């Protein structure tokens, strides 16, 4: 969706300021939010793509006014209701009003001893990769109202396939309820002028990680 989360190339947000406080969490509630997200994903209530989608669908005014962990909180409330795990009246009450549904698994203390590393998003390919390193490609000009990982600034642009990254879960499909639909993933690099026009920094190149359905031969 063409939301405010898709920030690449926007003006007006000001300078980047170093963190005044380098602690990982700046308040207790931020840590609780992160931990809840990890635990509920472990329960397979929703996946990472659904988390991102739920955040992107927040009203733009809310999204922009919220801090990072406030966005996570909004996303979790939205997802928990949409997936039927909780009900809005329970949020209002601050307590469960009905018994829980069954979830795939519940994280226990034993699971804390296991590595916290990210899982793999690789999936067996259903077909050969359509592109190879060195191929010229053009990103499609798509504007889905649903979740996508092709940023607006890189749509309809000509670039070069630099690497094939394997076949991965396709977020656009997962979030719309069409399953993982694994797709080949490529690093596609663009010249700065291709993205930003004649006045772009002449030394700039930008790459995105592009799923095959985002690309066509140039």
């Amino acid at each position: 969706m063409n939301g405010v989360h898709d920030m690449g190339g926007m003006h007006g947000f000001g300078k980047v300021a170093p963190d005044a406080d380098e602690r990982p969490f700046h308040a207790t509630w931020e840590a609780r939010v992160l931990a809840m997200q990890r635990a509920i994903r472990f329960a397979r209530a929703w996946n990472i793509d659904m988390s991102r989608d739920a955040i992107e669908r927040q009203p733009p005014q809310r999204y922009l006014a919220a801090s990072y962990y406030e966005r996570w909180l909004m996303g979790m409330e939205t997802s928990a209701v949409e997936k039927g795990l909780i009900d809005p009246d329970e949020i209002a009450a601050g307590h469960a009003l009905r018994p829980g549904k069954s979830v795939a698994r519940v994280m226990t203390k034993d699971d804390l001893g296991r590595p916290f590393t990210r899982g793999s998003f690789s999936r067996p390919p259903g077909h050969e990769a359509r592109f190879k390193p060195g191929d010229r490609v053009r990103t499609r000009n798509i504007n889905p109202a649903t979740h996508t990982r092709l940023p607006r600034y890189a749509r309809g642009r000509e670039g070069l396939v630099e690497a094939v990254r394997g076949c991965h879960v396709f977020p656009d499909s997962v979030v719309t309820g069409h399953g993982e639909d694994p797709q080949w993933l490529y690093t596609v690099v663009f010249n700065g002028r291709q993205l930003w026009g004649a006045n772009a920094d002449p030394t700039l190149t930008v790459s995105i990680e592009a799923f095959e359905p985002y690309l066509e031969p140039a």
Partner: protein
Amino acid sequence: MHTDDDHDHSELSDTQLRVRALETILTEKGYIDPAVLDGIIEHYETKTGPHIGARAIARAWVDPQFKAALLEDATKAIAALGVGVGDHLIAVENTPAQHHMVVCTLCSCYPWDVLGLPPVWYKSAPYRSRAVMDPRGVLADFGVTLPTDTEVRVWDSTAETRFIVVPQRPAGTDGWSEERLATLVTRDCMIGMGLPRTPAKATP
């Protein structure tokens, strides 16, 4: 664990109340266990961090074979150091000709396994909006200037691949041990939003 927002329970913000409500509901319904949340938090506060990435970078600076392996498959190479790292980690090397920077314009994707949780600035709108268009301007915000003819390559983390920058080894560090070199490797230089410390600015 800092509890600076928990001292006065009569003054809880709307956000704090909502977080508390959500945790209560999810717990009462049996989806999560608060004691497990404590353990998750402890992990992110004490175990992960940029020291993991710094160790790999320092090793790459002293061991050409390791550097080659890191650039070939960073997940595998870092696992060989005895550190578990999730899949799809990609290391990119800075040279005099090319400087790499990493951003996530769409959300805040970041290599947690090797750098810990991202700093606030990395997740902020100024960085996410400007890094892909004006990386030199963004670097200037942090007081970093690159040679005018160095190519700036920005990696937008739009999928589940994650990136770590292998900075150039600072001059004047010949004969330094791996451990000592690791003290020069800042988090920001592994994002490409800075350069390693120079020997003069090394922390003992």
